[in-house]
């Protein structure tokens, strides 16, 4: 009961602190504090709600991809590059339409996951066999992914008449994933891919907490040395974790691809991998926590978008809020954690003194 209360109070405290700090910044800059908050905290309209869910879906997948690595002490900065090569691959495969309808979709998704996995796997293998820090290798692989995709995109690109954007072939309608309506108006529908994202979240939770493999992965993350002694093969786990992380990263761009843009082009959303790091950290690698983090970030992004038009304040302020939230959340969780540990130790100590009291009685 107290635990639940603590668990809830921590994020609330963090949000309040973050809002206070942002307000200070706004006030210092002479911007209208109340107007900003009344816009950001207003209840979103149906279509904005749809946008929030859509963006959260994408961010969620990215967060989960990062979280898988974190669970094993691997810092996958490379989700950015992984989702890019994967989304491009999926777009090409789906655009070519070698298979009919949803078979085509399925093939594209599988290819995306495979390519994402391979791209991340390079870092995994380098770490496992050559001891190269995945932090460096994934940074490098991000840049390499950009160059390779740019090159290949130019090779396969089609350009619509009169457009300056280039992209892959459009995916035919029968292979697109239908959106789910949440209202009747225009734009009031969310990606059908949201279902897949939920499934991914569930699978993440299930595999990690309920399976032997997940146990091994978490054990390795907690203590490499203890994991080795227990019979876990670290090199294999490292590669496996990176492969899985990369496979999920491969899904990141797909909601957009199959639900909105239907092609990969130069305006395809970028930077999702880095957002995923913040969201995984915010959600403390927990499937529900990451979902909350993704929704929160998507909410702030969506609600701040019209700030400039309606209130005349640069929406960049929200980036400050987001960063501050990441910090305040961990600080308040840390405070709560210390408190929890103390509670636990008290319980241990109580049990201990109780035992001793009993022991004393026997010889006496």
């Amino acid at each position: 009961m107290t635990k639940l209360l603590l668990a809830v109070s921590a994020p609330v405290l963090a949000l309040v602190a973050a809002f206070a700090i942002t307000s200070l910044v706004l006030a210092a800059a002479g911007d209208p504090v109340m107007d900003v908050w009344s816009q950001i905290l207003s209840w979103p309209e149906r279509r904005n709600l749809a946008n929030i869910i859509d963006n959260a879906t994408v961010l969620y997948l990215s967060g989960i991809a990062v979280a898988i690595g974190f669970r094993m002490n691997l810092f996958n900065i490379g989700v950015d590059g992984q989702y890019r090569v994967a989304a491009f691959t999926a777009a090409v495969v789906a655009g070519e339409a070698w298979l009919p309808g949803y078979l085509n979709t399925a093939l594209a998704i599988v290819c995306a996951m495979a390519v994402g996995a391979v791209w991340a796997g390079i870092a995994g293998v380098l770490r496992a066999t050559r001891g190269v820090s995945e932090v460096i290798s994934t940074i490098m692989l991000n840049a390499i992914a950009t160059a390779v995709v740019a090159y290949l995109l130019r090779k396969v690109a089609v350009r619509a008449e009169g457009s300056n954007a280039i992209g892959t072939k459009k995916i035919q309608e029968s292979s697109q994933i239908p959106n789910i309506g949440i209202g009747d108006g225009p734009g009031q529908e969310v990606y059908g891919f949201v279902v897949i994202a939920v499934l991914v979240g569930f699978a993440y939770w299930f595999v990690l907490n309920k399976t032997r493999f997940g146990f091994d992965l978490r054990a390795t993350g907690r203590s490499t040395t203890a994991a080795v002694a227990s019979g876990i093969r670290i090199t294999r786990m490292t590669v496996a974790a990176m492969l899985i992380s990369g496979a999920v990263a491969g899904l990141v761009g797909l909601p957009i691809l199959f639900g909105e843009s239907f092609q990969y082009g130069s305006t395809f959303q970028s930077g999702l991998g880095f957002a995923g790091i913040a969201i995984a950290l915010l959600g403390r690698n927990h499937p529900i926590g990451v979902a909350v983090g993704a929704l929160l970030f998507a909410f702030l992004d969506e609600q701040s978008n019209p700030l400039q038009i309606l209130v005349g304040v640069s929406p960049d302020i929200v980036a400050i809020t987001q960063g501050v939230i990441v910090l305040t959340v961990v600080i308040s969780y840390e405070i709560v954690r210390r408190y929890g540990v103390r509670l636990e130790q008290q319980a241990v100590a109580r049990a201990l003194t109780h035992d001793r009291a009993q022991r004393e009685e026997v010889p006496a």
Partner: protein
Amino acid sequence: MAEGAQAEAATGSVTVRLRGIGKRFPGVIANDDINIDVRRGTIHAIVGENGAGKSTLMKILYGVQPPDSGTIEINDQQVTLHSPADAIKAGVGMVFQHFMLADNLTVLENVVLGAERLHGIGGEARAEIQRISDSYGLGIDPDRLVEELGVGARQRVEILKVLYRGAQIVILDEPTAVLVPQEVDELFGNLQELKREGLSVIFISHKLDEVLSVADEITVIRRGTTVRTVTPHEVTARQLAELMVGSELPSPSTETSTVTDELLLSVQGLGLPAPEGRPLLQDITFDIHRGEVLGIAGVEGNGQAELVETIMGMRTGATGTIRLQDRDLSPLSTRERREGGIGYIPEDRHRHGLLLDAPLWENRILGHQTREPNVRGPLIDKGAARADTERIISEYDVRTPGPDVLARALSGGNQQKLIVGREMSGDPVLLIAAHPTRGVDVGAQAAIWDHIKNARRQGLAVLLISADLDELIGLSDRIEVILRGRLVGSFDPSQVTPEQLGSAMTGAGPEVAA
């Protein structure tokens, strides 16, 4: 000697006077109304159970933690110690229970750290270290990396650190736990030297015979309070133990042999090449039968850890053969070896035995991820694992509120009991036990010994590695001595003395053909 010391102690003035020291941690009273006088030029021992509050008291005297109540007087001056810096200034030096050394720095750097004002960090400091090392016979090379040093040398570096700062009061928290008898003797020689120079030594140990032989005065602490201060000639080890815990001093003793003819583990010509330099293991050959305990004695760092890890399959590149119940182990992974019936109590429970931030029931699964009752197919069976953890908790007397507590919250002794219980589960045929009772108090120690003996009676083979020679002699059916990666002697525990073992371990004694 004891009498001489006694005479000195009587005349020595009090350098440290602790009065009414109290310290509470959340839910625990670590120290409560502690009163101790330490005299100049004496060795003052402090004994007590695990968790009695000895280390806490010493940390208070060294300024690491502030006391909640009570006063500290040093040389008749009342002092308030806010940090170790204050304590050092007051002339106190401390060698901690767990070494406080930075592995990747040189001895010189470790020694001068924090005391750069004295002799700088260069040549002058080096000369001073050399001087101290020579005059106390510590034999320390200031320019070696600490990670290259063995345990004994590290201990001496710790002492050198204290001397370098010109400490008048030297605290040694369990300095002998990891030393072989010869090293202990050397250490005690050093302590006598310090004593002669007029220093006061505060010395903590669980080994009561040591305490009796070296101390001038002994203070017993129980549950955070000083019970009594005695002199060595007033008490026997047994009486001391009773003062500590109110129960008898247990000692391992071999009962009737249960060794059978059935060969269980056969190690032939085992070698482990090193990337550079001398091989870590060389031509190791031995057999263990059902119901037999084979003890391995050796100074730490002579290949024990490597031997264990090679048998467990945690190291690659080994040569020679290892057969368990006629099955060749070499192609098997660590997990397959564990599944084949090897139980493993690792030397360093924090590094190799536990997930400190996971609950006990998850720690129950660790190392047994593929076996009943923890898993069903590829899935973890949390309910069954918890239930089995409860069983271990009650059978092995693990003091904890329940199986959902984090392993970190348990004291070392209780962590160890959990590990022993876990490794005895699943009916192992071979138990590899490395220092199974290190740092564990007398009560828990006896319980662990009993468990090992019981299992042996039922046919378990045990490979026992220990730095505690009494434990080795008491439990083993045969003792092999390991030196520089080779087995250099085989002893019958009923015939051998700790001193004989000690000289074989250091390469000083006559080798006995295996």
